[in-house]
């Protein structure tokens, strides 16, 4: 692990990591000496990207990953945990918290941090070393069905990323109602979860995500993401999971 997570092991899931301080009974039942000295009680821990910080070089530098994960994402985790010490949100999975705190478009104070913790976790898992290129099998067929061709999808993703004004994210999502894939942009911390969409790929377009490596050249960053970083393995898994909620039509029966 790169950086200490405040003495806590990185949680394998995004579930709450410990009970809140306002429940003394629970705390007594689960004494944890390592936490007694620390003022901040962690509800959610910083999750670790599924590769080494230098594994995405040269397309994303070790320095960028270390800062982006170890500082930016850590700050969102710390900020969220601080808020949760005095907030009614307890016992939610992070995904539920993001949806609840969005509060139908009038985000509660916890929303920004919660969504950014979720977004960054999802972002790291949207990439892999030696990623990029084009997908195969069912994912490719679904993309061809919804965008006409993989080339069209790539064009739309890049165009969308370049036309975002300010900080935010570009996503490939599965639209629950339309039952199709789509490229969407969100501002700042906003997550497509609130709209009921199922995220498939996320790309961070805050300047901190690429400035050290690409300066103002967002196009090069986005192109390298598509060509060398995006994890079609993650996409395949996410699509399989999504199909539990969205019927994408006739199952593709493998040919023997």
């Amino acid at each position, binding site marked *: 692990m790169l950086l200490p997570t405040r003495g806590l092991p990185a949680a394998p899931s995004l579930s709450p990591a410990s009970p809140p301080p306002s429940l003394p009974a629970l705390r007594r039942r689960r004494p944890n000496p390592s936490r007694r000295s620390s003022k901040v009680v962690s509800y959610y821990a910083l999750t670790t990207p599924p590769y080494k910080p230098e594994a995405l070089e040269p397309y994303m530098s070790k320095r960028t990953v270390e800062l982006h994960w170890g500082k930016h994402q850590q700050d969102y985790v710390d900020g969220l945990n601080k808020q949760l010490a005095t907030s009614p949100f307890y016992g939610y999975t992070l995904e539920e918290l993001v949806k609840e705190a969005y509060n139908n478009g009038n985000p509660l104070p916890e929303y920004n941090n919660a969504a950014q913790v979720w977004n960054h976790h999802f972002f790291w898992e949207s990439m892999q070393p030696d990623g990029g290129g084009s997908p195969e099998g069912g994912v490719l067929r679904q993309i061809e069905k919804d965008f006409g061709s993989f080339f069209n999808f790539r064009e739309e993703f890049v165009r969308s990323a370049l036309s975002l004004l300010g*900080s935010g994210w570009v996503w490939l999502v599965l639209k629950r109602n339309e039952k199709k894939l789509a490229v969407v942009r969100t501002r700042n911390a906003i997550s497509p979860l609130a709209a009921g969409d199922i995220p498939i790929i996320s790309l961070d377009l*805050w300047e901190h995500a690429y400035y050290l490596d690409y300066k103002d050249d967002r196009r090069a960053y986005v192109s390298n993401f598509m060509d060398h970083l995006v994890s079609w393995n993650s996409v395949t898994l996410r699509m399989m999971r999504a199909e539990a909620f969205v019927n994408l039509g006739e199952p593709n029966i493998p040919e023997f």
Partner: protein
Amino acid sequence: MALRTLTSKKTLALALGGVRPLVARGVATFTLPDLPYDYGALEPAISGEIMRLHHQKHHATYVTNYNKALEQLDAAVSKGDASSVVQLQGAIKFNGGGHVNHSIFWKNLKPISEGGGEPPHGKLGWAIDEDFGSFEKLIKKMNAEGAAVQGSGWVWLALDKEAKKLSVETTANQDPLVTKGANLVPLLGIDVWEHAYYLQYKNVRPDYLNNIWKVVNWKYAGEEYENVTA
């Protein structure tokens, strides 16, 4: 601000090196203003590399895209293409705001050797004491509000030209101060986009905000204040 209304094909040809004659109706084009100091002159508060990229790349891109959007707007208006006119408003606000905001920002900064960082004297100094309690309190307030801007944006010292009152405002992305109130005049704007500090300060925006005061041109802000309140 560098606004030129090009009135003849000849001037346009000169200005654009002989390309597109789009001026028949007098389309205004904006140009990137020069900085009133060298890129490295604000070091160590702001590095020369940041200043160069910020001016030559970021501000220049806002100018280019602003002109492009205005040109498209002109074409859409003359064609009576209402939906294009509406659709272009986003690009005009963003890129036009980017141009306006950065043009002010460069004037808000000054090398230490030329008086950058010297607190305001005269009427603005008195007004700050009156409206914020003290100069230090104003700085604290701007630092706190600037640090709290989510995503990209600006923090401003604003003057309400009717009420003659100072206030601290923030705007998102490249929204200019006037979007916060038609009477608000910017005396000082601080860019809190990550491109304004990331190469030097990384994720620590508060350090950038603390240090920028060493190169703030309070003389400019004071003159603006006196012009508006005169």
